[in-house]
């Protein structure tokens, strides 16, 4: 399903500083909490769109298998890695599109955005499969440019999106970790939170947070390196969030971090491919510490060879420690991958969700809007049909416009009794009602190009039972087709709403009035050679002032004499 108008997909993730800001809003937290935030023991990792786990399907056309621009330039190291068999290579996080410049992100939209936050400490057992969000694209709302003349595009997250993130808690010991986890959980238990910045009514960034179970690592859906790495084994380090290395080269920073965690001389760098530093999308420029810049974007890969046996706990410590600056906001995260496989396949994103329609009876409000929608379509079709029907008659096959106007006025005076009035007027003289004479009725009997006369057409719509009248109406207006294209709760329900006698008769009367009006226009405006304002006699000659009118021939009556008043 295409995105609603005004929304667009934005690749990227939200830095953890936004989630940390939720805690910073309440000034009553106290000094203990502020010290805790400054200690570095609690890190808020990036938030990404939530994608449920699914079976691997690399050939699923729905999931866009992307490759980094660096890969496309054939700088991918050839010694130990290889691209997939189809030439594409998929990584955990999308390379952010270069179309967006640095933008000031406002808070997400209101309503129903939820964040599942998993808190994990050290040494906990993993009891559920971890969830790492795939950057399938967040839905954003472009906002009008600010009055300050800043041309940077601004975006707000559209409501209804689920994001997944993690909070990494590092305690000095088990008791400390438990206390920290409990503290974070308690502060996320409020009914809802105000997220993001630049709040205003309607864009308060209301989110609800649910906390999931603890996880041992920030793992991924990919097959990550698990267990020890033997000497001589080739493995990879994947940056899952941008790296802030300061003045140091990104590759050197990763190597230095690995030496610090595993010891100097434990590994040897074979090859590396650093992605384009991502400064676009929803990564807030303000999240980058002052004086720093993004050295390497997420998706960068470095290939190492183990020179000695590397134990599991050493590798886990390297993963948890992070690299570079901005660790508290989720920058510099890495994950270890095994030697390059033939291809890394992404688990496809779920099919775009469509509107969930209730299965039982439609609500009354929908019926109200549906009826209006269908009636508008019917009246538009009625006007078109009336023009076509009137055009099929010659002018001399139509009664004088004044006669038609009297008929139209009589029906319009009591539209709710339109059908009885029409029967009365077209059925001959009644006891005390002014009606059309036989001559006038005969004048309406002239058959048009399609073989029916105006009188016969009107009679077909007012005679018979309601079912017969509805059948004639449906035939002329194509009600079934209209209901198929203009329904809200189903074409059958739309058609049933028109079958109600009151609605059907009202539509019939409206259609007849449209036809009469179109016939009036046809009869009075057929000859355009007469200047406007100049009358024209029944014989078709202009009635100029001063011209003596010839006496009408016997048997021919004036317009007023066609009906008795």
């Amino acid at each position, binding site marked *: 399903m295409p995105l609603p108008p005004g929304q667009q997909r934005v690749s990227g993730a939200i830095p953890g500083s936004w989630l940390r800001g939720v805690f910073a809003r309440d000034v*009553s937290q106290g000094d203990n909490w502020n010290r805790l935030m400054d200690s570095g023991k609690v890190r808020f990792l990036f938030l990404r769109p939530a994608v449920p786990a699914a079976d691997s399907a690399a050939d699923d056309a729905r999931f866009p298998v992307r490759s980094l621009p660096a890969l496309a330039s054939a700088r991918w190291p050839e010694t130990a890695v290889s691209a997939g068999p189809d030439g594409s290579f998929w990584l955990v996080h999308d390379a952010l599109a270069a179309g967006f410049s640095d933008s000031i992100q406002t808070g997400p939209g209101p309503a129903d955005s939820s964040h599942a936050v998993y808190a994990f400490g050290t040494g906990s057992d993993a009891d559920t499969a971890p969830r790492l969000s795939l950057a399938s694209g967040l839905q954003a709302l472009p906002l009008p440019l600010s009055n300050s003349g800043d041309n940077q595009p601004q975006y707000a997250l559209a409501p209804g999106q689920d994001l997944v993130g993690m909070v990494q808690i590092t305690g000095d010991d088990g008791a400390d970790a438990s206390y920290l986890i409990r503290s974070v959980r308690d502060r996320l238990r*409020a009914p809802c939170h105000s997220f993001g910045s630049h709040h205003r009514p*309607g864009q308060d960034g*209301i989110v609800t947070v649910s906390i999931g179970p603890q996880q041992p690592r920030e793992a991924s859906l990919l097959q990550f390196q698990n267990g020890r790495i033997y000497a001589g084994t080739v493995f990879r380090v994947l940056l899952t969030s941008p790296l802030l290395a300061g003045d140091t080269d990104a590759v050197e920073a990763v190597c230095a971090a690995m030496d610090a965690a595993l010891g100097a001389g434990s590994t040897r760098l074979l090859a590396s491919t650093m992605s384009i530093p991502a400064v676009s999308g929803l990564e807030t420029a303000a999240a980058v510490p002052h004086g720093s810049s993004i050295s390497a974007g997420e998706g960068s890969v470095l290939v190492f060879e183990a020179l000695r046996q590397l134990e599991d706990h050493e590798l886990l410590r390297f993963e948890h420690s992070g690299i570079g600056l901005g660790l508290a906001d989720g920058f510099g995260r890495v994950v270890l991958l095994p030697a390059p496989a033939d291809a890394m396949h992404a688990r496809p994103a779920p099919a775009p969700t469509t*509107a969930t329609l209730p299965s039982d009876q439609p*609500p009354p*409000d929908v019926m109200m809007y549906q009826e209006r929608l269908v009636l*508008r379509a019917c009246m538009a079709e009625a006007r078109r049909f009336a023009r076509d029907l009137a055009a099929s008659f010659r002018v001399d096959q139509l009664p004088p416009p004044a006669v038609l106007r009297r008929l139209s006025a009589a029906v319009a005076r009591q539209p709710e009794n339109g059908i009885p009035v029409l029967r009365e007027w077209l059925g001959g003289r009644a006891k005390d009602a002014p009606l059309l004479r036989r001559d006038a009725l005969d004048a309406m009997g002239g058959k048009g190009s399609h073989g029916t006369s105006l009188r016969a057409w009107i009679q077909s719509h007012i005679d018979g039972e309601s079912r017969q009248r509805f059948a004639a109406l449906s035939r002329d207006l194509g009600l079934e087709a209209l209901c198929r294209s203009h329904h809200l709760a189903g074409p059958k329900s739309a058609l049933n709403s028109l079958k109600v006698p009151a609605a059907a008769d009202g539509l019939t009367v409206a259609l007849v009035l449209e036809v009469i009006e179109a016939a009036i226009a046809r009869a009075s405006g057929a000859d355009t050679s007469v200047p406007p304002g100049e009358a024209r006699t029944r014989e078709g000659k202009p009635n100029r002032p001063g011209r003596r009118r010839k006496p009408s021939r016997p048997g021919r009556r004036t317009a007023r004499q066609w009906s008795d008043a």
Partner: protein
Amino acid sequence: MTDRPTHIDIEFLSDACFPVRSALETDAAQSTGNSRQLAIHTALDAGGFPFVPARVLLGQLRGAWARMSGAFPNLMDAASRVLSLGSADGSPSPLLRIGDAQYPSDVMPWMLDAVSRNQHPVPHGELLRSLTVRRQLLRTAPPSQANPDEAAPMTHLDCVRTGTRMSAPLYWLADPSALELRVLAMCCLASRHAGVQRMRGMGHVRLLLSGGTQDQVSDRKQRTAALALAAAG
């Protein structure tokens, strides 16, 4: 824990218009002379459907409180928290966030499906015209200075129809007290007119608190009135 309402239901008892942009001026040149027409449309959300911006709703509640605050001095603190009025002494942070009022959650899926379905989608303009009604106002704007002989512009308002029902979500950042609920209920009951031309027969609305369920109008009225008349805690 106090049972807190989750939505403010808005019932339109007359046509109402909530424009967010300046008048869209279009030139409608006729065969004789020039005539300018101004078409003002009510606010549309990202999906292209009419809605009531949260700032309008919050403004209505604040305006209602401003008119009656003098009679309820004991509710000043509660009102400052509920209506985000702020205070000089640094009172606690606001308690309530109000979202935009949109069509009910049981109606929107039908309309979204109608415009986005693969077979026979309803043109969005057709659906929008069935949701709104066009009202033509008298010539109220003065003729332009450049051409005094030019006819004054006619103004069309595309309004939300009478009988429409919308719902604005309420987000409580903490559990409200009875006084705070009372302030909210009183402000809802005191808000009667909203939008443009509200002093000329348009914009007659009814605000009721609800729990987000399919309550009857009488139930919502009863609940709102009960909250408003609750004894001070």
